[in-house]
């Protein structure tokens, strides 16, 4: 059971996943997941395709009820409370979906204004200013009145990020941010994530299997395995690469060439960036 004062003077846990089991009916996806995300960390959920990374994310943002276990934000339980308590907790989070998931019937500015209008008392003009600012932060100044279908996939992702940041959340979730982006855009998005963490002090959870970006941004992670259906490693990916004894983790982190472990992480990362 999670206790708020278990760690003295240690880093402050922001999200605690406790004994989480995920399943669709009788089909088990992952079980016994236990980990903490500390405030201000960039935390990576990694693992091969189809191991349940995105499903874990859906459990953490309240879209799917766990088969067992719970997710705590601070000391507040996400799944034991009512739907409105859940909403309250999640108001502090922003999510960038894999596809961007911008509301296609609204312009980019309207996409950002909608959550603002829902949860603040700002005037239309002020909200519009905030929307412009957020778009400028992700490099989309001037695109306020474009519809999502009129811009490229990379721009949609960045606009999705601008929307996720609309309410200045403390926690940002990213579902495969660099999937489908060219290497330069992926790198720019990584830089953006880093500067967001540094400037806003946000806690960031990223689902990813892009090694280059994992090594570039992460300072903590868990590794999900689809065979054993649980997490088989945790910690800073760079340290994992240097120290892990598990061939599955090593294979993943070295792109199937365990012998290249001696290369520094940034090198092994940049070789396919």
């Amino acid at each position, binding site marked *: 059971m999670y206790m708020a004062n278990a760690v003295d003077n240690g880093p402050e846990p922001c999200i605690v996943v406790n004994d989480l089991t995920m399943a669709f009916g009788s089909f088990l996806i992952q079980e016994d997941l236990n980990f903490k995300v500390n405030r201000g960390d960039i935390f990576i959920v990694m693992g091969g395709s189809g191991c349940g990374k995105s499903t874990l994310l*859906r459990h953490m*943002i*309240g*879209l799917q009820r766990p088969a067992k276990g719970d997710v705590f934000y601070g000391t507040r339980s996400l799944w034991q409370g009512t739907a409105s308590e859940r*909403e309250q907790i*999640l*108001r502090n*989070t922003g*999510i960038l*979906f*894999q*596809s961007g*998931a*911008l*509301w*296609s*019937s609204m312009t980019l500015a309207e996409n950002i204004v*909608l*959550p603002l*209008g*829902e*949860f603040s008392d700002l005037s239309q003009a002020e909200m519009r200013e905030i929307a412009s600012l957020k778009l400028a932060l992700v490099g989309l100044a001037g695109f306020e009145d474009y519809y999502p279908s009129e811009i490229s996939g990379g721009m949609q992702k960045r606009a999705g990020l601008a*929307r996720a940041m609309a309410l200045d959340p403390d926690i940002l979730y990213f579902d495969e941010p660099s999937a489908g982006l060219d290497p330069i855009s992926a790198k720019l998005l990584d830089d953006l994530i880093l500067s967001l963490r540094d400037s806003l002090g946000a806690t960031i959870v990223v689902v990813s299997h892009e090694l280059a970006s994992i090594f570039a941004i992460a300072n903590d992670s868990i590794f999900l395995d689809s065979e054993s259906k649980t997490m088989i490693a945790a910690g800073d990916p760079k340290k994992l690469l240097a120290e892990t004894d598990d061939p599955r983790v090593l294979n993943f982190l070295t792109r199937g060439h365990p012998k290249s472990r001696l290369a520094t992480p940034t090198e092994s990362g940049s070789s396919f960036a």
Partner: protein
Amino acid sequence: MNGQAESRGLNYQFVGDAELEIVFSGDWKVGAALPDMSGVLQQLDSRAVRQVRLLAGNLGEWDSRFLTQLTKIIDRGKERGLPVDTTELPGHVQELLRLAYAVPERAGARRDEKRIPMLAQFGSSVLEIFEDFKGFVEFVGEATLSVGAWLMGRARFRRVDLLQVVQECGAMAFPIVSLISVLVGLILAFVGAVQLQMFGAQVYIADLVGLGMAREMGALMTAIIVSGRTGAAFAAQLGTMNVNDEIDALKVMGISTFDFLVLPRMLALISMMPILCLYSILMGILGGAIVATSVFDISLTEYVNETLRAVHVRHFIIGLCKGAVFGVLIAIAGCMRGLQCGRSASAVGSAATSAVVTSIVLIVVSDAVMTLILNRLHL
């Protein structure tokens, strides 16, 4: 038992006591006539064979068809525990075979066709209907709560969305409603006139068309048009939003999908359906008038007077109320099927189909119930 067989492209023979040598030659590709493999496979089953060697004599051109034959032999060999030596096949073939066998088949991944007994199939479809009904009741409940929240001024949606749906399902439906209603009026007039003419009572065409359109056909025809135009569009829109994670994005932001998506659509249809119905009734009466004046020698004044005498405001109100009820049902069916939509392109298609089917069923059933009740009440 030195079995030897010859055929075009495929030879096999025993070398020593226990080694079966299979030699492929000629073309093994799509379009070529392939030799019969059954003889070779039978040989593999014979007890004498201890190992198998595959040779490519003067193999010509080959493609995947050659590989499938090889895998047949290798698989059969594996079943019997025979070592199959492929090292003398061409390098490319060996490489492809290595790839094909590199990742072992995942246990349980193959989907075997299961035969489900008819009774079980029947049972599960009955259960499905129950589930579906439960979903419908839940949806209606949520929608009611949402309307309640709106009446209390708590539900939030974008006014632009409401106006857009109003335009989409109201104003833009006028042309098709005009066409269908005039034609239905014409048809009613003709059908009735043939009978009424026998009694020389053609003037009652006006009663028939007026009452028929006002009480039944106006609302019914409009509802069927709107369910095809708008109900299907609702399902497709919401379904695509679901495929696109847009619904999840709303949920995560704590924005109620009912307030934000279902409510404006429902309000738009409730407000537009009576207007469309009224228009449809008038168009139907116009259609009747065209037939009566041009074919059956009734003057326009006579027709109008007869219509005014026969059709009371009460009949119009009944028709418009029915229209409003149908509007709610269409909105519920469309939005429900859209939100229940799966996460693929084909699911969006079936959501649209199912929205139309559901709303037409609901329309006709509710119309029957309402007609029965009104009849009992002598209205």
